[in-house]
């Protein structure tokens, strides 16, 4: 019973994660400029990654494998915002103009 629930839960995590990364990738393709694409990439790197790795962790149970997955997850969660930040900063200093909606200009 409990094992069945864990399986269902991990499958749910994996499927939801898969949906989210595909959404994020669609966003990366669809959005109009670099800075907005950045946000879409952020989707795939936070919640989607967490969900997929969580699904795998549930799959593995309390083992060393789970510990390693947790490590990977932490590592991605630490480095991905840093990489994103460095990238946007480089783009900003490279004089790439962000697309701004006229209604929002202050």
């Amino acid at each position: 019973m409990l094992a069945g629930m864990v399986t269902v839960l991990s499958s749910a995590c994996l499927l939801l994660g898969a949906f989210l990364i595909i959404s994020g990738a669609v966003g990366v393709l669809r959005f109009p400029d670099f800075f907005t694409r950045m946000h879409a990439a952020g989707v795939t790197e936070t919640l989607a990654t967490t969900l997929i790795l969580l699904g795998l962790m549930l799959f593995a149970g309390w083992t060393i494998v789970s510990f390693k997955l947790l490590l990977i997850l932490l590592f991605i969660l630490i480095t991905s915002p840093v990489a994103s930040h460095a990238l946007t900063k480089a783009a900003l200093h490279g004089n790439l103009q962000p697309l701004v909606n006229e209604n929002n200009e202050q």
Partner: protein
Amino acid sequence: MKHCLSLAFVLMVLWLGNSGYYSPLLLSLGAFSVVFAVWVSHRMDVVDHESQPLHLSGHISFFYCWLVGKIILSNIDVVKRIWLGNKSISPCFARLPMDQKTDMGKVIYANSITLTPGTVSMDIENGTVLVHALTAENIAELKGGEMNRRVADLEL
């Protein structure tokens, strides 16, 4: 010194958790590795209060719980906008004040902004952070200052 010890502790946990083999040979190799890694890092001068933030470990778990909730909400929002198409977004950016005193606090704040989909921190300058957001609401929410205040509280 205490930073070196805490680093050694972290590294030891890392080794034991990763290894899975607890023979005397490997354990002694592990001990050697930990000492060596700490020594090299010490030489490189990367072991200090910034790499081992002992002073704010207490409150940080609460903050990250709060942040996870935030991340989930904003994820849903961004995914919705992705499928709705380009019409639904209105990118904009703004310069926000940072109340954190230390570099560490500023880094946590900027990273939290970036981790939340819909907002990306672009640059840190003179105690302000330049944020790019997918919609005006995202900026408005950050301007409310809740995240800013929470991160600043961590520094106590």
